[in-house]
């Protein structure tokens, strides 16, 4: 299992478009990818789960990947987050 804390850095936070981007990227991996925030535990492949987090800019999320491509999955997630989902930071 691989774990990584990732921070939402784009200005508008994790709204619908970034949520879609995360789900679409997560789906490319066969590993289970789970996100933890406060009392929430959600599946990174669930758009509704991600929206429920309502994560604003500055929020830290803990990502856990488990499966054959867990390392690559986390690297990809890290890349997406550090890039501010391709939006204004």
């Amino acid at each position: 299992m691989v774990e990584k804390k990732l921070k939402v850095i784009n200005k508008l936070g994790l709204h619908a478009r970034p949520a879609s981007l995360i789900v679409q990227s997560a789906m490319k991996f066969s590993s289970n990818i789970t996100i933890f925030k406060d009392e929430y535990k959600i599946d990174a492949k669930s758009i509704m789960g991600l929206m429920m987090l309502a994560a604003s800019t500055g929020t830290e999320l803990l990502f856990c990947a488990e499966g054959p491509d867990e390392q690559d999955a986390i690297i990809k997630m890290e890349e997406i987050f550090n890039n501010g989902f391709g939006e204004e930071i």
Partner: protein
Amino acid sequence: MTADKTNIILTGVPASPGVAIGKVFLFEDDEFVFVEKAVPKNKIKEEVVRLQQAMAKTRTELQENQVDLGKMLGKNYAKIADAHMLILDDPMLNKEAVALINEGNNAEFAIYKVTEKITKSFDLINDEYFRERKHDIIDVSKKIMRHLLGKQKKTLADLDSASIVVAKNLTPADTVSMREAMVRGFATDTGGKTSHTALVAQSLEIPAVVGLKNITGQVSHGMSIIVDGNQGIVILNPSKETQENYKREHDIQIAQQKNLEKLKDLPATTIDGKEVMLGANIENPEEVRSVLKHGANGIGLYRSEFMYLTRKTLPTEEEHYNNYLKVAKMMMPYEVIIRTIDLGGDKISKLGLMNITQEANPFMGLRAIRLCLKYPDLFKTQLKGILRASVTGNVKIMYPMITQVEEIRQANEILNQAKAELRKEGKKFDEDVQVGAMIEVPSVAVITDIIAKEVDFLSIGTNDLIQYTMAVDRVNEDVAFLYDPLHPAILRLLKNIIESGHNAGKSVGMCGEMAGSPEFTIALLGLGLDEFSMSAIQIPKIKNVIRSVSMKDAKNLANELLKCNDRTEISRVIKRFKYR
């Protein structure tokens, strides 16, 4: 309520400006109905297959929608269908629905229950934007349900004459099949300013009023209706007089629209050569593009509250600075007037500010400049952010809700401290940054001559000025009629404010809704207003009015209006002026 009663006024949230008169097309949303049925063990597998087939059909439907939506509203809106596809594929929906079927429930019940559970969690979200997204989920679930039940929904494609669409709520799936030319306006029970109905109406530039609570229960097909998206009201069974008033308003709109595109790069100048500034009101930097597109030459009101409302902690100086700098740069060389926070203590206390008590009457309580003066550090942080952004040279500061001159002096004192700190920290700012006061409390509307000596400019906030002067809450439909921008008291106050400002050599602007309503433009021009600031999409309309009149006529109208004793006389003067 009897069916033949005329002029039934319903108040909602103005979601898209403009006025539309027409007949009701009652868009009946098929309720989320389901039959709860136990499924015997040996049929469970079949039931799961039935659900999967319904989902596959829904997928095909969404793919078709995606293409249509893109064609109608552009690429960004096709992303709505994208999001729907992801919801359909969401493991939360799939897994939990299948689990419920495995427990012996039918597919309809499973979808209903899962949707209910998910939307309940969405209701708990603080952020309005995310909360509104639950409609996307309900929308997808309804589609699955329809395919399970094998029903065909009556869609907005069934519209056959220009109608006002009245519905509980409109979803992307509803509006995608709508033939635009057939729709004159929207009126819905639910929704806020960021709901799908509002977004579609704005992009199609048709009026919409949302959040009317129960309009669907009060109308029937074919009923006469007026949607006034400027004021956020809907009038059912309008009387002849009301229809005439609105018809006139509507005709002006149509005539204006034809000229709007040509107006973008032309100055807001009267026939006899007096130029006024038309600015836009914004809430966040994202709106600047639309501001420029509509030909604004400045931002007359940057509401800084947005930064406080979308988060759980107070914004830092750096965050203020970045936000304002972005807007200032994008707007160069036009001016940007940043209003310091205009919030009540209730909103700020959520961000961790201590010792704020519950207020019985927040509109008359600790808010705006009063709050800032009580919590100078909160204020100074914002002022430092604004000051640093002022290096671009086009930024101005405006204090809201000034009630007495001492407040300006105290606020300037804190501003000077902020400047001193920045100098010490070696951070640059515009030493000559201009400071203005909002005139929105009747007390300062009376003593504007005193206020004008202490500031560089004035801006009239008509929404509050009218509300406080008339002692009327305009969302209260029983008294909303008292909210009258042309009331003799309001006109006299406006005259006094503008004259006092000019006597002191200061420019006077207006950033309330009155500035963006074409029906008042000429009177305001006649009173001598220098700057009009409004929602960006109103700018071409206002510019058109200004370019069609002379200052001489405008002054005459203002003088005539100032002589009126009551509403009847006012209506007569306006009518006579229109047909002069």
